[in-house]
Each structure stands twice: as C-alpha cells, then as structure tokens.
C-alpha cells in the first residue's frame, strides 16, 4: 500500500457543498489514521476520509467491521491514542470552522460532550458500574455547564424523561446493572445530549440491542434530532438502520469511503459493486423469492489493503484496470440530479459546478465504463 493512491489528487474540493452555504458544521478532509504495523510499516486504518456534516443533517456511515468507521468517529473527537496511533499530516477535522486536529487538549475537552455528543455500541459497559445512573448524567452537566448539584439533578430528571425512560426518578437512583440494555442505552443518550450538543455521533447504537428495542432507540434518536435540530452521524453495519434514519449515506470499505449519496438514491441504485453486494446480502420481505448474494472473501486487515482498487479481489466485475489503477471518487452521470457534476475536465468536460456532498460519488471505474457491469455479478446463496 502506498500513500499516493490514498488521496485522489483533485485540484478542487470535491466534497464541498456547492451553493455558498458556507462552512459546514463539521468538515472532515483527507482524514487518515495509521497504527504501527508488525514490521514497523504504519498501517492506515482510515485512509483519506472526507465528508461534510451540516447543521441538523443526518449522515450514515456504513461498512463491515474493520473498515475504519468507528476509528473515523473517534478520530473526529480526537480520541485515538497517539501514540500508538498517528494522524497523517494533511488530515483536517474542522468543527464550526475551527481545526480540531492539533488543537490543545483543553479545547478538545470543551468540544467533547458539550458540542459533540457520543453514543457507543455497548450500553452494557459504557456506564460506570460503581456510580448511580443519575450521578453520571449529572456529572456531565456539572463538568460542562457548571450547574450546582441541585440544578444538575433537576436537569438529569428532565433528560431521563426526555429519553423516555419509564420511571426517571427510579432510573436516576439505579445502578447500571439494574437497568436493561435498552434502558442503559437511553441513559447514555441522555448523557450524550445533556449539554445540547450540535452533533451527536452514534457508533453502532443499536447493535447490542434486540430488534424491538433497536427500533425504539432509532425512533428516539430521530425524535431528538427533530426536536433539538442537532446533526447526527450514525455509524452502523446495518443498512436498514442507516436507511431509515439518515438523509445521506457514505459507504466505507477498507479505510475509504467508496460510495456516497442521498440515502434513498443510494439504496435504490447502488453504483459501487461493494454497495450492491451489501444490499443484495440483506433479506427483503418484499422479495422473498430472491436469493441472497454473497460477497466472496472477507475485509482485508488494515495494512494489507490490496493495491489499486481495494475491492478488486472481491469484485465480480473487476478487470485489469481495477488491479493497476486506484479509482478516485467519481461522480455518477445521469443520475437525475441537476447539479450532477463531474470530477475532472478530462473525464467530464460538460460539468463545471463543483460536486457537492449531496452528489452521488462512487470510487469505482465502472462509473467510467458502465458497460463492464455485465456477467453474473455476485454468486447467490444456494439453499
């Protein structure tokens, strides 16, 4: 793996929102995080991720385990331990225009919790077992907003009621082990939104919960977003979860975003073979007769990303170009979007407007040569 093919050398900022909206709430550019590998060669677990998150927007980040989505999230709030981790030079995370990469620890502590809330995957272990739930929520308020104990307690009760915990007073007095998984996740959401953050990052918030509770938690997240107008970055391996809650979706594979676009569009017509494979691997109640597809192989480990297109060893459509040349994120043409842009003059001389984050981009040569999408595609599960 070499650095040059990691970041497409594009003269313009392909990810910037067009239309002069100004600086987005969160602007991530060329974020790359590496860890020392076995032989001392750094492995880039996140490799050149860029996206914008606007006020009140919901963005989904999808991918298999190990593709770097959680690391991306942690990296936004600068919580990757360095060392051993290292953020590549040129990485940029800007919150309301202020750079967070390299910001002093005190500034980061202000942002964390107060400006950017975070909900983790494991509600079972994300609460401190030795403190009562109410105290943990109140501590956030005391630390960030300087509330008195009494005021914090009152706010805690409000918050716990707001996340629909059935008996907020009892929940506040309970120890974490006395609450069910769903209740704990609600308590954690209460902690995350305690200081009215403008962004809530939810990293697999429903993975550890059973399906009915999942739906409730997602409903709760959607409602809180409507009420508070906060932006949501929802990370999940579950396409259904992301599709229901978010406006836009970015699909990650092997440390990179391989496809992005408005959720409905992306799910209706996936452009990248990986997205197509993911979608075809999900059982559908409407199409029971359809057989499920299998993506052969498994996600390569960080540090052993295949060269050129990282998906080509598993791709049913791959041809020579895929193994020799790394594709940049290419805008889809003729997808029905008026502002549909192109990447570079050479390839798309007809477009002049810079592609926005609303655009459909796919990191695949099929965009250039759609005729190659032929043959049998993915193998299907045989019963």
């Amino acid at each position: 793996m070499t650095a040059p093919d990691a970041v497409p050398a594009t003269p313009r900022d392909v990810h910037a929102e067009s239309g002069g909206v100004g600086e987005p709430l969160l602007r991530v550019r060329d974020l790359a995080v590496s860890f020392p590998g076995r032989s001392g060669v750094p492995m880039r677990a996140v490799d050149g991720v860029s996206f914008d998150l606007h006020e009140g927007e919901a963005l989904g980040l999808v991918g298999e385990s190990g593709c770097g989505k959680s690391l991306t999230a942690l990296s936004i709030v600068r919580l990757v331990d360095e060392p051993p981790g290292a953020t590549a030079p040129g990485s940029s995370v800007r919150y309301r225009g202020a750079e967070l990469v390299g910001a002093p620890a005190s500034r980061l502590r202000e942002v964390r919790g107060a400006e950017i809330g975070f909900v983790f995957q494991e509600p079972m272990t994300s609460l401190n077992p030795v403190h009562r739930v109410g105290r943990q929520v109140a501590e956030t308020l005391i630390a960030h907003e300087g509330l008195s104990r009494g005021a914090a307690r009152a706010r805690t009760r409000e918050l716990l009621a707001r996340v629909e915990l059935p008996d907020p007073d009892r929940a506040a007095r309970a120890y974490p082990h006395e609450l069910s998984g769903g209740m704990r996740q609600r308590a954690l959401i209460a902690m995350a939104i305690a200081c009215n953050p403008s962004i809530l990052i939810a990293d697999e918030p429903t993975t550890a919960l059973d399906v009915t509770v999942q739906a409730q938690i997602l409903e709760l997240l959607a409602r809180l977003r409507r009420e508070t107008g906060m932006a949501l970055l929802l990370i999940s391996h579950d396409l259904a979860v992301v599709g229901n809650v978010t406006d836009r979706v970015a699909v990650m594979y092997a440390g990179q975003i391989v496809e992005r676009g408005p959720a409905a569009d992306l799910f209706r017509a996936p452009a990248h073979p990986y997205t197509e494979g993911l979608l075809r691997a999900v059982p559908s109640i409407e199409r029971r007769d359809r057989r499920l597809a299998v993506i052969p192989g498994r996600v390569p480990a960080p540090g052993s990303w295949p060269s050129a297109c990282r998906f080509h060893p598993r791709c049913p459509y791959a041809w020579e170009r895929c193994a020799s040349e790394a594709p940049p994120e290419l805008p889809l043409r003729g997808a029905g979007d008026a502002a549909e842009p192109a990447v570079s003059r050479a390839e798309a001389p007809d477009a002049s407007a810079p592609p926005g984050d609303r655009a459909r981009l796919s990191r695949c040569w099929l965009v250039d040569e759609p005729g190659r999408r032929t043959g049998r595609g993915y193998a299907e599960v045989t019963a």
Partner: protein
Amino acid sequence: MGRLLDLVLPGARDLRKRPVRAAAALAAWAALWVLVVVRWDRIVATPGGGAVDAWIALVSLLAALAAVWRLGGRRPEPDVSVEMRSQWGLVSDAFRRHRLAMAGLALVATLAFLALLTPYLAPHDPAAQGADIVATRFQPPSWEHPMGTDRFGRDVLSRVLYGGRVSLMVGTLAIIIAMTLGSLVGAVAGYARGWIDAVSMRTVDLLLSLPRLVLLITIIAFVDPSTTLIIVVLGLTGWMGTSRLVRGEVLSLREREFVQAARVLGFGTPRILFKHVLPNVATPIIVAATLGIGNTILVEASLSFLGFGVPPPTPSWGDMVLRGVRDMHDAPWLVLFPGIAIVVTVMSFNLVGDGLRDALDPRAGGGGHS
C-alpha cells in the same frame, strides 16, 4: 412489652427465632454493662483526668453500647425487592453468607473494641512493677493476674491489651499509608502507561527484590526508633504489591467503554482516573488492605522480636515474646499469651480478607463457601 424488652435487653426477643444472633447481642450487651459497673470509678474519673486514651475509651464504650443496642433490637427487614442494590449491597450479602468470614469480622470488631477500651479493661498499669519484685515476678495465672506476671512483676494481661492497641494502630496506619501510596503509583502507572509505567514498575520490581525485613532493620538502625517511625517505615515498604495490583486493574479498566465514554464526555484525566477508574479498583484494594493489616501486624511483631520494633517501654506483642523466650521454661505464659494474641489477630484479619475476596469474586457464585 416486646418493645420494653428490646430497650432493656436488645436481642432477647429473638432468642427463639435467631438464637445465635440474639445470644451474641445479649452477651455483648452484658459484657459491656459488667465493664461499666466494674470500672465505674475509672469511667467517672475520665472527665476529671482528661487523658486522651481515657476519652477515646469513653467514646468507644458509649458507641459500643449504642451499636449493640441498635443491632440487637433491630427487626429483620422485610425483603422488599432485589432492585436498588448497589455493588456493595450485593457483596455484603455474599459476605454475610460466608460463616468463617463473619466469625473473622466478629473477632476483628471485638479486637478493635478491646483495643479502644483498653484503659477501662486493663486490670493494672502495664508498666507498673510489683512493690516487691522478687515476690511478684513470674507469678502464674491467677485471679489477680489472669495471664500471670513477667520478670518485673508486670501484669501480662494488661501488657497484652496495651500491646494490642499498639499492634492494631501500627498495622492500620501503616496499611493506610501503603494503600494510598500503592494505589496512587499503580493508578498513575497503569493509566499513563509508557515510560512512567516502565520507570515506576521497575522501581517496584527493585524494591520487591529487597528482603523486607532486612530493609526495615537497615532503615530503623539508622534512625532513632519510635512508634511513628515504625508506622511510616512499614507503610513505605508495604505499598509495592498494591501498586502492581492497582496498575493491572487500571490497565484493563482504562480500555473499558465507560472510560472511553468519560473521555468522550470531555472529562479531564484526573477526574477520569480518580472518579471513574479508581472507585472500580476499590474492592481489590480493600481486600489487599484487610489481608495487609494482618501481615503488617506479623511483620511488626517480627521486628519487635528482633529488637527493632516499637521501642520499650511501649508494650508490643513481639517484644513480649522476645523477652519471654528467656524465661520460657519457668514461665511459659509469658510467651503463650502474646503469641496467641498475634495468631488470633492475624488470623481474624485473614479470615475477613479471604471472605471479602470470595464475596467479590463473581466466579465464587456470590456465595463463597459456608
């Protein structure tokens, strides 16, 4: 009627339903009142005399009376529900089912009260020699001297009691120093990792490789011995095991999601370390401390036996054994009673420590052996 009985004889009502508990409460209640009656003159003298020891004893006596009255008269709480049990609540349930540990706890409590009440309990002045040394020395146990007298005609029982105060105080204070230091070093090393961890843990390895008794004797040989010195030195040489223990726990705790969650909430490192991580290590620290007190008492006794412990005339069990050994053939009680005191004390602390460890160990199924 029942209520009146509770007021006068706490626990009497339960004699049929919970005989062991009721009998224990009644026995403690009776013993305390016997003490009050027998030592009435000393108790009355306390407000006038004003010695700190006597005041401590007076307060302890009142506290003991209140505690026995309260515990003996308490009705069993109806089992409302299992909710709202803190980790401590669950642990204490498990501990209570552990009979040996409860016996140890009762012994420790008794020893603590004996130590606190010593000025009222001791029949004689521990330093007072008989008027006629030749006549009063080496007396075998009798009503006048239940544990006999030593070669200076001093009352052994009084000396064992006063020695117990010293032993328990030295053990407890030294362990407090050791646990504080050990927890701090271990927590910082485990949380910071990197070179801080490497330096402090290699220091611990180095200190652990020195034989403790030799180290202690060397330090004490250079400084004027005093009780304070013994406490400090025992504390400063006893923290390494704890720091390793705490470091290990913190190393694993720092990777737990709730620590990550605390960082994501924007809490600073000291807050995370002391308010979120360390409380989770409290239980192993408490187990280590309980076992450590017994061990420290033993080390202090060994030091005294070697002549490097708490300096005379302050009575200490190790010193009494040392001085009794010479006359062991003529007066075996000189070695026997302080020896028994050491064994019982160390054993009861170890029982409590073991019981706590079992109660805290989830693999023991919460019950421990009973």
